[in-house]
């Protein structure tokens, strides 16, 4: 599995686990499936819960103004965002 694929698979797993989507298999979430509104039906609190899970899993820090509909539109968009953050040099401790 390529690293891209691994990132996407991890994100799908985090979505199911952290958002209590019982009975849903991570693989059933499409890479480009809309996550909010009509798609998977997630809302703003789901997005924030997912942020906590992503930060912990990938050891990244997500700023409040980065939590928007474009970044969180789909798993593919999220994966691209996560990979971009991981590639950046760390700019200091996340929250101090």
């Amino acid at each position: 599995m390529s690293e891209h694929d691994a990132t996407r698979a991890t994100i799908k797993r985090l979505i199911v686990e952290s958002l209590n989507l019982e009975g849903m298999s991570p693989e059933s979430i499409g890479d480009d499936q809309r996550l909010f509104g009509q798609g998977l039906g997630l809302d703003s609190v789901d997005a924030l819960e997912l942020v906590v899970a992503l930060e912990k899993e990938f050891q990244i820090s997500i700023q409040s103004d980065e939590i928007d509909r474009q970044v969180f539109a789909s798993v593919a968009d999220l994966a691209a965002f996560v990979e971009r953050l991981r590639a950046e040099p760390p700019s200091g401790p996340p929250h101090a």
Partner: protein
Amino acid sequence: MPSRAAASGRRVAVTGLGAVSSVGWGVRPLWQALRAGRTGLGPFSRFDHTRQRTHVAGQVPDAPADGARHQRRRARLSYCERFALFAADEAVEQAGLEAPLETVRTGVFFGTSTAGLLESEWFLERLWRGAGGRPGLGLMASHQLNTPGDSVARHLRSTGPVETISSACASAALAIGSAVGALRAGEVDVAIAGGADCLCAITYSGFNSLRSVDEVPCRPFRQGRGGLSLGEGAGVLVLEALEHAVGRGARVQAELLGAGSSCDANHMTAPHPQGIGAAQALQHALDDAGVPAERVGFINAHGTGTPLNDASEWAAFVRTFGERAARLPVSATKSIVGHLLGASGAIEAVATVLCLEACEAHPAAGAGPIDPAIPVDLVLDEPRRLLPDLAAVSTSLGFGGANAVLVLARYSGEAV
């Protein structure tokens, strides 16, 4: 339309005020800060916030030296109770009443979100991290949410009904509404109504997890506002059947004309974007008070400073007041003392009475243009003169969708 007060014949007077907040212990320092538009929000030390996302809050300063006697006696009480007791004492004294209140038919109606949660945090931390030994059970004695209201009733030796409400940001306003109901029904002649809350890590972390907290002192209704600022303290009002107050020669500071509430029933954290629930609460409060919307001349807004709340609240103003909405002076008390959560409705009711008494809407703290998308007439820089015969509304729009609104006015002095 006839108000419920008119129907029951019992009007409600405000005869005493008490307050504790980040700008000081007492109503005097509160009014000074409100008038000056000077914020009490800033660095704080109530708990270790090194790893928090933000570092601003409205912490109550250490108790004044001359209050040392009270403080020593109250040292084993939670911070929240200490705030509540100080504010209750101040309000009762101002009302010219004296504990014990056993001989007066008195009730206590309180709101809180935290009670002794800070002290419970200490207990849990010692329980989970302590090396042997057990944390003192005394730390958990104030855990229950009824503790601050009970403490006030116990201290004043009040023997009538006691009721505590915990409905997030609407708690104290709902409690005040409950007090109005009890007074009108003749269950009590005097009601001690208010709220108290204390800063603690759970609420601070929680609001930060929702990315609702601003990194700088909150900027309600301003362009680029970034969220709320948490505060702590207490607000207490002595409410009284008007004929009872007048009968004993009490000074009536304002009249509490009515209360209304509703629920968004929409989302657990986000307010309804069109402000429908808040507008319903406003309308119900005005109906209850027998005050038409045109008679409102001042709004003490909920105004937390979150992008969503302020926009939703503006929408509610427009629904209720139509095109007048943009011309109604608005005071944003949270810019001065922060968001006192369960107690916010109480301290903001106190602020509203102070504004009515002085005929001045207090300015908000901080700089920056008002958000052009929500053109409230936010009072800035200087207090704004208010017309004396108009009514005021104070809005409390809570987490979980509970909305509560109070309607107040200067006492007209007319015979009961």
